[in-house]
């Protein structure tokens, strides 16, 4: 605990030194792991204070170590990791020193968790009632009172008909409902601390807004403190009181949630902000953050600031030693040696940024024309009804045109994409490519796959894990005679095109980062230079900085190869950045379509309005209407 002194000084910075009741206080927490004989500091000097009834947001990209804190608290750190120094005071007692018995007693009773995947966190073979009762009995509610208490808890999270819910199984509920059950369980023991680890990431935007609102409501009523882990900065500004930005296991910046976006002081926070597409205001080109976060195994070799290798403002001094945390203003601290100089530097940079154009059509002539296409899944047996996945619709796309298709899960947007690609049969209608109707024969299929290609949502499952990147990039050549030399050249070309290092063609997908995998995924679809790309949620699982890279890559491919893009997404700001035209879908029907800017600024359909409102605005002063309940909505969900 050599650096306790420095940390003690910092404390005033993290939260205003008002006489507040502090619930959780970390001081100089270090988490080490030894890899190959070297000791790597996974978390370096984590210090914060969390007052009762407040929310601390942990924001960062994957690999930043934001989930580790929750694991330290729950004593679930992976084998080989150990907390080497520091203290973690929970209501005056050290969590790290507490006996196993005491700790077990706290968990679930005084400290509760809300998991990321509500569907998998609930046991599929037990009813909600059984699981909830088990939980209640564990913290000492008499069996006779359980049912009444459970129903009350479920009512508090605004679940309709809580009594009927008790006999249901997890799979009979929607994701949003399951997450509400998890929240109800977390709050049932009236805990002092709730840790929510990406609890809303798996949910639709509008469900997310309601769940966050619910969390805030319960917290305000019960005076609970919350640690809110998320990768979404926009969400953090609205869901938290205070936000800490983590990068490579280090707290880079801590500020009141309202200030973190607008008055970001750390270059990394700024880079995150500049890489996040906006839903409102003028569209400016996104600045991408090159490179990737250093892995844990290389931490030992970085003597100075861990962000220095990717930082635009890095100077020699940055690599000399770990920068101290400096107070910027009341409650705002930053770990950057040069933050004071940044103000002048960024002002220059911002003036030079140009204007941005989304993907407009190069000509009025259409490449692909679908007329009256629909999809109905026939019922499995006579008692069930046929399921309409897509009502009859027309669709055209011109060269270079980027069209966004938005809607929630189950709205039929993925079905549309798969039908255009030819992976799903059409129930009715026809598709023309360059004026010729596609049939079901082999020649049509060959023509189709040479002109239309699809980029799959999850690059992990779309890339055969047992083939090398080079083989995957040129997978098209598998089925036709080619020379090895020719193929090797093409794979290197493609790797360059999508911004991968040439050496990476020799690697396996599992050896690449998420962003690199997505690049392979995109590169593969470009091998035959198609005219249309169908992209199904390709940026949704990625970190913001990688997302910005991929989006700029797509726009670049459009300029170079004149490709058109059908972008299926639930993220309206991504669609706004890329697409000139947008289709809004609900329950298999297109309910609104038109120019992106027009639809977003003046939505006609109430559902479109609701979708737009559900996105957490980046402006901290803006109210987030999507997060407020109307009685009607609460009843529906």
């Amino acid at each position, binding site marked *: 605990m050599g650096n306790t002194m420095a940390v003690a000084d910092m404390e005033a910075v993290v939260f205003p030194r008002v006489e507040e009741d502090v619930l959780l206080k970390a001081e100089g927490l270090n988490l080490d792991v030894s890899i190959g004989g070297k000791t790597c500091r996974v978390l370096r000097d984590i210090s914060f204070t969390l007052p009762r009834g407040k929310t601390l947001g942990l924001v960062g990209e994957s690999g930043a170590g934001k989930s580790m804190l929750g694991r330290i608290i729950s004593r679930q750190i992976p084998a080989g990791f150990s907390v080497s120094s520091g203290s973690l005071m929970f209501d005056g007692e050290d969590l790290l020193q507490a006996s196993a018995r005491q700790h077990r007693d706290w968990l679930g009773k005084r400290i509760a968790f809300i998991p990321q995947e509500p569907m998998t966190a609930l046991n599929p073979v037990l009813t909600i009632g059984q699981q909830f009762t088990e939980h209640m009995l564990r913290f000492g509610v008499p069996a006779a009172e359980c049912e009444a208490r459970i129903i009350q808890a479920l009512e508090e999270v605004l679940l309709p008909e809580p009594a009927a819910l008790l006999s249901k199984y997890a799979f009979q509920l929607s994701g949003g409902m399951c997450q509400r059950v998890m929240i109800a369980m977390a709050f049932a023991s009236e805990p002092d601390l709730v840790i929510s680890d990406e609890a809303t990431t798996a949910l639709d935007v509008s469900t997310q807004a309601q769940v966050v609102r619910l969390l805030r409501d319960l917290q305000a009523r019960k005076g609970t403190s919350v640690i809110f882990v998320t990768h979404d900065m926009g969400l953090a500004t609205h869901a938290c009181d205070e936000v800490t930005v983590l990068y490579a296991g280090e707290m880079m910046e801590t500020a009141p949630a309202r200030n973190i976006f607008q008055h970001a002081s750390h270059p990394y926070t700024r880079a995150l902000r500049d890489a996040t597409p906006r839903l409102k205001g003028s569209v400016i080109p996104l600045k991408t953050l090159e490179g990737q976060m250093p892995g844990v195994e290389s931490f030992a070799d970085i003597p100075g600031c861990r962000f220095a290798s990717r930082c635009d403002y890095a100077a020699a001094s940055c690599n000399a030693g770990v920068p101290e945390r400096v107070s910027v203003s009341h409650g705002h601290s930053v770990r950057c040696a040069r933050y004071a100089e940044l103000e002048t530097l960024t002002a220059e940079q911002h003036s030079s940024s140009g204007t941005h154009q989304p993907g407009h059509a190069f000509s009025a002539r259409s490449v692909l024309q679908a007329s009256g296409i629909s999809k109905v899944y026939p019922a499995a047996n006579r008692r069930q009804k046929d399921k309409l996945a897509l009502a009859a619709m027309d669709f055209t796309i011109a060269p270079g045109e980027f069209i966004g298709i938005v809607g929630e899960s189950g709205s039929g947007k993925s079905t549309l994409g798969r039908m255009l*690609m*030819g*992976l799903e049969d059409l129930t009715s209608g026809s598709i023309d490519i360059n004026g010729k109707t596609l049939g079901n024969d082999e020649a049509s299929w*060959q023509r189709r*796959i*040479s002109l239309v*290609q*699809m980029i*799959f*949502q*999850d690059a*992990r*499952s*779309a*890339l*055969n*894990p*047992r*083939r090398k990147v080079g083989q995957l990039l040129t*997978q*098209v050549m*598998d*089925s*036709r005679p080619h020379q090895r030399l020719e193929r090797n050249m093409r794979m290197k070309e493609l790797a360059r095109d999508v911004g991968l290092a040439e050496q990476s063609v020799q690697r396996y997908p*599992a050896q690449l980062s998420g962003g690199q995998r997505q690049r392979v995924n995109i590169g*593969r679809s470009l*091998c035959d230079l198609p005219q249309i790309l169908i992209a199904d949620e390709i940026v949704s699982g990625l970190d913001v900085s990688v997302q910005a890279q991929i989006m700029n890559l797509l726009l670049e491919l459009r300029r170079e190869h004149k490709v058109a893009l059908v972008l299926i997404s639930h993220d309206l700001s991504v669609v706004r950045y890329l697409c000139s035209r947008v289709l809004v879908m609900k329950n298999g029907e297109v309910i609104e379509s038109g120019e992106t800017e027009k639809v977003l600024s003046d939505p006609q359909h109430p559902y479109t309005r609701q979708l737009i409102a559900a996105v957490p605005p980046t402006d901290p002063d803006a109210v987030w209407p999507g997060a407020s309940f109307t009685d009607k909505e609460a009843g529906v969900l």
Partner: protein
Amino acid sequence: MMSFIPAWVFSLLRDNNIRIGGGFFLLLLIAALFAPELAPHDPNEQDLFNVLLPPMWEAGGSADFPLGTDALGQCVLSRLIYGAQVVVIIALTAPVGAAIIGSILAMIGGYFGGRSDWLINRVVETWLSFPAVVLALILMIALSPGLHNVIISIVLVDWARFCKVLRADVLVIRRRDYVAAARITGARPAGIIIRDVFPGIIPTMISLMALEISIAIVAESILSFVGMSVGPDVSSWGGMISDGLSSMYSSPYPLLLPMIAMILTVLATTFLGQGVRQVVDLHLAERTREA
């Protein structure tokens, strides 16, 4: 580099079940390979002066016949050692044969679906509805005794289980995005099956094969017990048990010793199968977590 050997091969060697089972099986393999050198006598050599001798440590036993002799004066130890040859051959070939037939049909049925899948499924169900031993006996009657035919009949009986289990795997892999991705690159079905589907079913296939070893060994011994396996001139443990039955009241050893050998072998292969399955499952779990 060793990178072409998957990591699970190494973890196989760290599993205790595999060490025990594999170690015993290795001994058996050595006995089978060097049978002519190890066996004190020819397995069919009869010494009618020394009939039903007890093992050498019992009164009346002779160091010439370490485990005694049977009713025809044949050396029990030599017959056990030569019998190990049959066991090892069956253990190594029958699972491979069943896996080949089963996996090919599983991939055809599971990948293409439709009528071929329907047909393969019905055949598998019909096959599985027969008691395995009865089916093998019928096949052996049709094929006539002999080592090759035993292998063929065991393979023909057991492929159905492989097919049924592997087909479920194929159905899962078929829905993966990378199979759809291969389709839109214009790959032919055969190419997709070889490059994308087959590598995915290998782990399940390996654990099925490990379990099949003990099943095949027992099946062969049942067939030789009823005299429908390898010919009478080849010594096999099942045949020794059946011969030992007639003289079991005068000397139990010709019956007990092959039975013990049998039990130990099946136990060892079960350990082996269990170990392999654990390691493979562990790797599957790890892979899905990273995926």
